[in-house]
């Protein structure tokens, strides 16, 4: 007991009628990797904010390093050696990568005068620790999500932390960076640093955890050695049920492809991409970071118009010059960086959901009926089981995973004919992931063509009837679901040589 670094006892916290945490106790010892798992909205981030001194609990005690803190302030937590990688990154968009990494450290050691050379040196050293190269002078606003997440991680490593808390710190990262991160975690563990790790990727949890605490609806369900747990047990404790997911059963609906892409190129991003998408199909697009998969999606959505090649919709040649023309052709796109780019955080949940469809909800005379908007939003809140006590609250008040669902709701509500989903279930808990998959499958069943960009292998296998593999901007293979299994797809994804066994596009009978 005496050697605990952090000890929380009987912590409770409620928000306007929602009991986010209910009598939670947690002990973290030095050099211990403690995982925290639970469904979206179960209270994980709230617990972390309490440890960081950002949110104060209604009840309960916090003891750090043997010292009780009746009113823990953020600076107290930082001075005691607690570093948090927040789910929303908590970066300064207007400052450079280097300054974002070094600023908090400079602040905590009471620096008065900023030495820019030192700032860069600190930043570079932190980036070297996780083995990534980022442009030190780029403004954080202008870099991709995965890089933002790496900046947030590097920032936590600058300080000589005693406890590093990672609230879903791997959501935007690919396998390679996750490996590097785990390497770093094991390194700091050897120095006696404790890690509190939150993730919805249960394989990660099982791989790294010494101990695991499972919370459901704000209450601790299990706090045990990780060795005693397996995937099924975790899922069961989290959701209170067992989850079985059936693979998507694609029934060809038409001989006419919905979308035909031929020889599409965008120099520097991707080259010579050809494939087609039939109504009712769910086609996966996968590849490592930098394989051009996101750029391909952006080009189909008119953000990065392609330089060469053709796109046909219903057999008609179309030119997608900008987003407006993509939307006119019935294309919807759910972006990768939903948390920071896809929402009006201060606006209500209702408003965020109806924003894309507001035109169609207009009544005669152009007026909007609040009741109608609300009913429409409520339908989607139910469909996607968005967990909220009141849809008039700002989106900001939702848990991270529930914010993601709001973005999905917004786009699904606009009923596109071709839907491009970039990482549709990133940050969503296992139970809800299955629910979202069911929704995606039923949309496809109604004749929508869906492209799913993901590197979540089980997800691709459950959802897709066909999978495209991209590598360094080119199509490296096209596979029927039937010829793949988890191992095969994993190998394909990480393999560096080109594959010859590509299967041609499906023949519709």
């Amino acid at each position, binding site marked *: 007991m005496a050697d605990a670094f952090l000890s929380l006892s009987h912590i409770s916290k409620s928000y306007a009628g929602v009991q986010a945490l209910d009598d939670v106790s947690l002990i973290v010892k030095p050099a211990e990797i403690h995982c925290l798992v639970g469904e979206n909205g179960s209270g994980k981030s709230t617990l972390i904010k309490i440890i960081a001194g950002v949110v104060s609990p209604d009840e309960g005690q916090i003891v750090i390093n043997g010292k009780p803190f009746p009113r823990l302030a953020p600076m107290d937590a930082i001075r005691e050696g607690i570093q948090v990688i927040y789910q929303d990154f908590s970066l300064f968009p207007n400052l450079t990568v280097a300054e974002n990494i070094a*600023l908090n450290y400079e602040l905590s050691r009471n620096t008065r005068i900023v030495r820019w050379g030192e700032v860069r040196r600190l930043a570079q050293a932190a980036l070297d620790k996780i083995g990534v190269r980022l442009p030190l002078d780029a403004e954080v606003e202008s870099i991709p999500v995965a890089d933002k997440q790496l900046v947030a991680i590097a920032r936590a490593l600058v300080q000589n932390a005693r406890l590093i808390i990672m609230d879903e710190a791997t959501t935007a990262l690919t396998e390679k960076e996750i490996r590097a991160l785990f390497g770093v975690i094991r390194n700091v563990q050897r120095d006696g640093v404790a890690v509190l790790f939150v993730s919805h990727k249960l394989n990660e949890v099982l791989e790294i955890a010494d101990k695991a605490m499972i919370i459901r609806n704000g209450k601790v369900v299990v706090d045990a050695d990780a060795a005693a747990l397996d995937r099924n047990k975790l899922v069961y404790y989290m959701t209170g049920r067992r989850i079985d997911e059936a693979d998507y059963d694609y029934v060809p609906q038409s001989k006419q492809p919905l979308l035909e892409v031929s020889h599409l190129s965008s120099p520097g991003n991707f080259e010579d991409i050809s494939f087609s998408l039939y109504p009712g199909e769910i086609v996966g697009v996968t590849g490592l970071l930098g394989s051009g998969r996101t750029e391909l999606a952006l080009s189909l959505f008119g953000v990065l118009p392609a330089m060469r090649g053709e796109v046909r919709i219903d057999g008609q040649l179309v030119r997608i010059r900008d987003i407006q023309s993509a939307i006119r052709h019935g294309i919807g796109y759910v972006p990768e960086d939903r948390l920071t780019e896809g929402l009006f955080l201060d606006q209500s949940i209702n408003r965020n959901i109806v924003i894309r469809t507001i035109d169609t909800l207009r009544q005669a005379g152009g007026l909007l009926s609040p009741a109608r908007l609300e009913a429409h939003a409520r339908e989607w809140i139910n469909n996607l089981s968005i967990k909220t006590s009141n849809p008039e609250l700002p989106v900001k008040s939702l848990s991270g995973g529930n914010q993601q669902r709001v973005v999905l709701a917004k786009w699904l509500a606009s009923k596109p004919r071709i839907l491009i989903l970039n990482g549709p279930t990133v940050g969503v808990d296992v139970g809800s992931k299955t629910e979202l998959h069911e929704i995606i499958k039923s949309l496809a069943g109604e004749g929508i063509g869906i492209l799913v960009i993901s590197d979540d292998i089980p997800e691709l296998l459950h959802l897709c009837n066909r999978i495209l593999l991209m590598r360094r901007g080119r199509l490296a293979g096209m596979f029927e679901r039937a010829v793949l299994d988890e191992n095969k797809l994993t190998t394909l994804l990480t393999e560096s040589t080109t594959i010859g066994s590509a299967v041609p596009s499906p023949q519709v009978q």
Partner: protein
Amino acid sequence: MLKKLFSRQETLVGITLVALCLLIGTINPVFWTPGNWFDLARSATVTGIFAIGVLIVLVSGGIDVSFTAIAVFSMYTTTVIMNQIGFQGGMVAFFALSAAIGALLGLINAFFIARFRLPTLIVTLGTQSLFRGFLLFVIGSKIIRDLPPGMAQYSGAFLFTVTDARGITVGLHSAVLFLVGVAIIAQLLLRHTMLGRSIYALGGSREAAERAGFNLVRTQVFIYAFVGVLAGIAGMIYGGLNRQANAQDIVGQELDVIAATVLGGASIAGGRGSVVGTLLGVLLVTVMSNSLILVGIPSIWQRVVIGAIILIGTAVPAIRALHTARRANVDIEPVPAE
């Protein structure tokens, strides 16, 4: 590297400024005379000091429209006090007193903004009326032309004078030193101190700044008190140069100053802006309002031209930002208006 330089608002404004000077100077060579330049420096001084204050507030994510009221309040009250005590000393004491009054009024802003977290625009709109009303009804509203000696002599405090070909003597007023000093201090503060960086952090993301442990109350108290000091000094310069204390003056200029600052690259949304950009923005606006007359543009049209330049100058970076945002990472969508 070069590309980056050219994509900056500062560069853009700088180039426009030089081009404008060349154009005006070619049409009317009077533009190049020392007399004209000294006039420009004199006009830019007060606006420039105000603009540096506005810059700091904008960077922190706020907006202040009360600084003109603080300026006129501090200047007028200082004049009244000095007259009443029959102060015979030099101008330094006037600046000190006016700055102190300005700081005090700034602290009133800071109190509402930092303590109660009220929106800065609402608070400063309120205090603007409050300060001005208090000045006019309690302290006085008559124009004071009978100034204390120190203040009366200030308008003749030239750094140096030159006599041109026609035998007219013109001088560069020493007030310009205030602008130089304020600019240097602001530059050092914003760029090289943790306090300055906390202002950028606050403007970039308040939540992230709180989580990092910044003492935001202290930062905001500093910002509004500092702006009060700058307003007090600028107001005193204004009164001294005009050789009168007029309680009706200055208020009404605040939007022009904010526009010049935004033209210089400061973002209304917070987190962005530089001292160099601000100075260039102020110079551009000053050259336009002082010198368009030299090329025969009637004064009623000047406002139109200035308005157009500000519109273009602020639209260009906004459009460019949209483009880069589209290219980088995106939820790019046509947002229906609320």
